[in-house]
């Protein structure tokens, strides 16, 4: 409980380490105005089976806060809640609106766009709290703010945990 409580010191939704890549966000924002429904891409699904602990480099272990995709994470890792870093736990629903960060994968040195889709519909997971508070902006700047429960975009706003969905490669920094 002590660790758990301390983790709340940084509980402040949706942080991103590098937020200088605004042009893509702008583009996405512009492209998606008015979009609705749950778009599902017919691409390869991420493996839901993840190691409980990694003896490997922590930046490559999806169960750890240090995982490279978690650069913009602020919440409970779904991999510790019955889901995985890319899937929601049974009985929850993945929010379709989200805050997006750009994270560098040390394995290939490239930057990727990560969407921090919340899983919604069950009470807070309370396991594997992971907060990185870099690049955060106040609530009045929602696209960059880690203070919002993005289950607002789901059919329920009950927040459970957060995934790290790799959307694609980021463009180079201008």
């Amino acid at each position, binding site marked *: *409980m002590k660790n*758990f409580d301390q983790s709340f010191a940084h509980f402040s939704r949706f942080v991103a380490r590098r937020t200088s890549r*605004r042009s*893509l966000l702008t*583009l*996405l*924002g*512009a*492209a*998606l*105005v*008015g*979009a609705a429904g*749950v*778009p*599902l*891409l*017919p*691409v*390869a*699904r*991420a493996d*839901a089976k993840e190691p*409980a602990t990694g003896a490997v480099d922590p930046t490559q272990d999806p169960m750890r806060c240090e995982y490279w995709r978690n650069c913009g994470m602020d919440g409970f890792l779904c991999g*510790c*809640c*019955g*889901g995985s870093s*890319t*899937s*929601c*736990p*049974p*009985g*929850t*629903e*993945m929010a*379709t*609106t*989200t805050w*997006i960060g750009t994270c560098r994968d040390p394995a290939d040195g490239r930057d990727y766009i990560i*969407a921090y*889709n919340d*899983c919604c519909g*069950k*009470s807070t997971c*309370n*396991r594997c709290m992971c907060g990185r508070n870099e690049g955060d902006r106040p609530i009045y700047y*929602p*696209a960059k703010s880690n203070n919002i429960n*993005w289950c607002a*975009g789901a059919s329920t706003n009950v927040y459970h945990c957060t995934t790290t*969905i*790799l*959307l*694609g*490669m*980021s*463009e*180079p920094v201008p």
Partner: protein
Amino acid sequence: MKGGAGFLAVMTGACIFAASVAGAGESVPDLLHRQDSVGKVEQLAESPGAHWVWVLDANLSSMPDGRAWLFDADSGRSMGSLNTGYSFVAFALPRAYHEIYSAETYYSRHTRGVRTDVVSVYDPNTLSPRAEIALPPKRASTIPRLNDSALTDDGRFMAVFNLTPATSLSIVDTRTRKFVGEIGIPGCSLAFPAGARTLFSLCFNGGALVTELNPDGSLSSQSRVEKLFDAEGDFIADNGARFGNAWLFPSLYGNLYPLEFTGKTIKAGKVWSLVTKKERRENWRISGYQGSAVHVATGRLFVLMHQGAPDTYKDPGTEVWVYDIGSGKRLWRIALEHATVAIGVSQDADAVLVGLDMLSSHLDVYTAVDGRHLRSIGEVGVTPALVQFPWQPPAAPGK
């Protein structure tokens, strides 16, 4: 980014390809090579693993938000959770585990407003509600005890213990999804399955009240059996372990009381001692909220123990003592990793023993055969107090 509401949210998925192309500098195949789908939700395997275990959390600091967590004791991973309302206690799990039954209480304004009691029926694969059966708003609010509810051995009828403070059982037909009726159990409490459609309740005077249901779940007959145990002196725990046609209850001073049910009634089996005279002098004591478990196939009884005065009989345990039920012989003692309020044993041949520390929120996993500590799983709830293994072996022939 220059105005309007669109900047607020990014719909993930559909438009990323166009966006990525616009990003330039990388080829499309590269981009597609690493890309996740959006919206994936896990489901569990059709059949539970033998070492899956539910940890039941009444969440005593925020009782409207009860929860249960399913863990795989082998990998240490969480499989998912259920939210179970105000003053949650435990599930009733059918042997086939095709459904999960949960007696729950809700308030329309979480802590006030209209009270609604239900049996929620959950899908064990999707961990989603499948049905809801209305109950009279009378279910007992107690410190968690597994037998606040029970399924009859035929798997069909669920009994929910009520305390208003008058005591009764609400009977629910899990097949028709209907509340059948309420059966008073004056002077008695809790519900222990004891036959196809028979349950018994423990009574304050040291007796038991046997309740038999008709095939439709209505009351067939009730009978009282007196003097099964001493409710004043060497009283038995209000939690025990099932072994065939008996429930085994450890007592305050370290004796084991088997309550055996045959046909429509119940009788006291032969009482035997869990402790030596020396150990009794040394105040070795029963422990916890769920202080015993049986591994049916090997006929072994696991009892949670610690040293302390009689009044500490619910304090956390520090050891598990293992007995051969047939001979009453103690086989070995297991030292526990954490102060343990609940123990459980899986029913497979390669069984695990689990122990739950409510204080530090740990689930400890040991081999049942030699008590070797395998792993400890952390962050298993706010005030987790009970465990339930969903997997059960097929019923033995002739049962």
